[in-house]
């Protein structure tokens, strides 16, 4: 090996090493707040307020029991699962039907209908707060589960993804089903929907996580803890226990853990879904 080639190799290796180190640093910066909240949740109030700060977790598990008894977390959890689960179910049904119509059926105005649905993306959510509050009030749905499920029961993202998928179904498949005398709904139920399972799972995950993490909407549209989801509950808890940092940290940990597990188990699919959709929408 000549000297020059050797030094080039060396340069390349050292660059790779340096960029690896930088990547690691980035990872630490992003992960640290999660570590820090666990540390705080396991230390006593006294040691949390000491200087220099204590970077290691203690064994004060009692913070968890204490925080758990301060609010009706079980109710908040059940509400969240009910709301997120129902929203997912509704979105899947409406997206399957609309995606099938736009991707498989041939009818006049199909392109216009699709364009109209896409243009809904232009309407920002924050703009809808006032009018939807009034609509929900007129429906007598304020402070109910309905207010948190039905308005989110259709998704442009879901329709878009399924339209793409159904539009790409091999024509032979459709013709074969026609020869077998299958009706449209039969075809959708027994052939198209099962084939679309990966897309359905991606849509379901996004809707579930989005619903679980939502705050502004339920915060405005509900007022009773009996129908409120976990993030609104946590916000209320923060308002009343704002200086009890160990207890607050414990609450943050146990309210966030379930959705973080969902994320960790499904991250590959979520990333693939985001890349595919944004790629398609970029054109």
């Amino acid at each position, binding site marked *: 090996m000549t000297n020059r080639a050797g030094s080039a190799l060396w340069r390349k290796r050292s660059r790779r090493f340096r960029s690896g180190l930088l990547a690691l640093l980035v990872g630490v910066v992003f992960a640290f707040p999660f570590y820090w909240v666990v540390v705080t949740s396991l230390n006593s109030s006294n040691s949390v307020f000491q200087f220099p700060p204590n970077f290691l977790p203690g064994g004060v598990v009692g913070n968890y029991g204490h925080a758990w008894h301060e609010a009706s977390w079980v109710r908040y959890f059940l509400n969240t699962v009910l709301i997120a689960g129902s929203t997912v179910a509704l979105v899947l049904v409406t997206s399957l039907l609309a995606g099938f*119509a736009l991707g498989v059926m041939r009818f006049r105005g199909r392109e216009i209908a699709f364009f109209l649905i896409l243009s809904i993306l232009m309407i920002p959510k924050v703009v809808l707060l006032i009018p939807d509050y009034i609509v929900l009030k007129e429906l007598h749905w304020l402070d109910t589960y309905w207010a948190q499920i039905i308005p989110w029961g259709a998704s442009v993202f879901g329709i878009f993804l399924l339209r793409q998928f159904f539009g790409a179904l091999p024509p032979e498949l459709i013709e074969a089903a026609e020869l077998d005398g299958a009706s449209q709904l039969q075809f959708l139920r027994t052939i198209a929907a099962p084939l679309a399972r990966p897309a359905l799972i991606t849509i379901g995950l996004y809707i579930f996580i989005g619903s679980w993490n939502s705050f502004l909407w339920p915060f405005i549209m509900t007022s009773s803890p009996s129908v409120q989801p976990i993030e609104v509950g946590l916000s209320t808890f923060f308002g009343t226990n704002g200086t009890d940092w160990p207890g607050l940290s414990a609450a943050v940990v146990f309210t966030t853990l379930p959705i973080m597990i969902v994320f960790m188990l499904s991250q590959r699919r979520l990333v693939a879904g985001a*890349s595919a959709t944004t790629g398609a929408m970029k054109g």
Partner: protein
Amino acid sequence: MSLDSTLTARALGISRSRARSRAGIRNGRLAFLYLSPALLVFLVFTIGPALFVLYISFFNWNLLNPSLSRFVGGGNYAALLHSSDFWNSIVTSVYFVGATVGGSTVLGLGIALLLSQRGLVRRIVRLAVLTPYFTPLVATSIVWVWIFNPQFGLIDSVLKLLHLPEVGWLQSTTWAMPALIVYTLWHDLGFTVIIFLAGLATVSGELREAARVDGASYWHEVRDVVLPQLMNTTLFVIVITTIDSLQAFTQIYTMTGGGPLSATTTTGFLLYQQSFVFYKTGFGAAIAVVLFVVIALFTLAQLRLSRRAA
């Protein structure tokens, strides 16, 4: 079998296949029925309300008893133009949106470049960068309120250890906004990184290789070969993050409540405050219409750009 049926259809000619399609699966007779559940939801909760908000903005709207609402024409808009709260919120929004969009574009691209190679370390780091984006805003904001706590928080402790002056962060009119921006970048960068990583995957490896063979340094390779191919991705990221930042609410509500004074009251937050704290519904609706127009322009620009790219 599927192949058979295509062949048969072809052999029988177009008239037969047309006849079948009238009764077949592609028949669009019931299309509207299939579309209607989704359309109903959109109509009642999205499209209708988007028009309704415009209507409300012309009234002195009475939330408790709508029949007592009074038509004021352009009154709310005139009040908006003369409201120092509104203009302050515009300045604050430009600060917040500019910093978060600029930050997430530059840092997002940088981190994506750093993570685009294979390897276990990079896979773990990618997960760490991505996690905040999928975790709730309320919960993670609370963690950062603690990190930014004056005196006892992590950052002020470190500043103290380094014998640097401590900062009141969320309680300081100067530093509350930077703190909010740091949090928002931390929470949202993962999304930008995914998009840039997807973009980087489509960048021609051959061109990069060629640049390297020609002895281009890494920075030249990025600047002259990678960036030009990422123009569309970058524009997409800028538009999407702008639209998101204009609507930011939860972290502002949790971390600063729009304060101190009104240092972090963006236009989106002002909309909430005016409508749901002060119950000035018509005025809030006028703010909503302004926001709507701004965001719609950004979305149209994005559609335009993507069509040009296609």
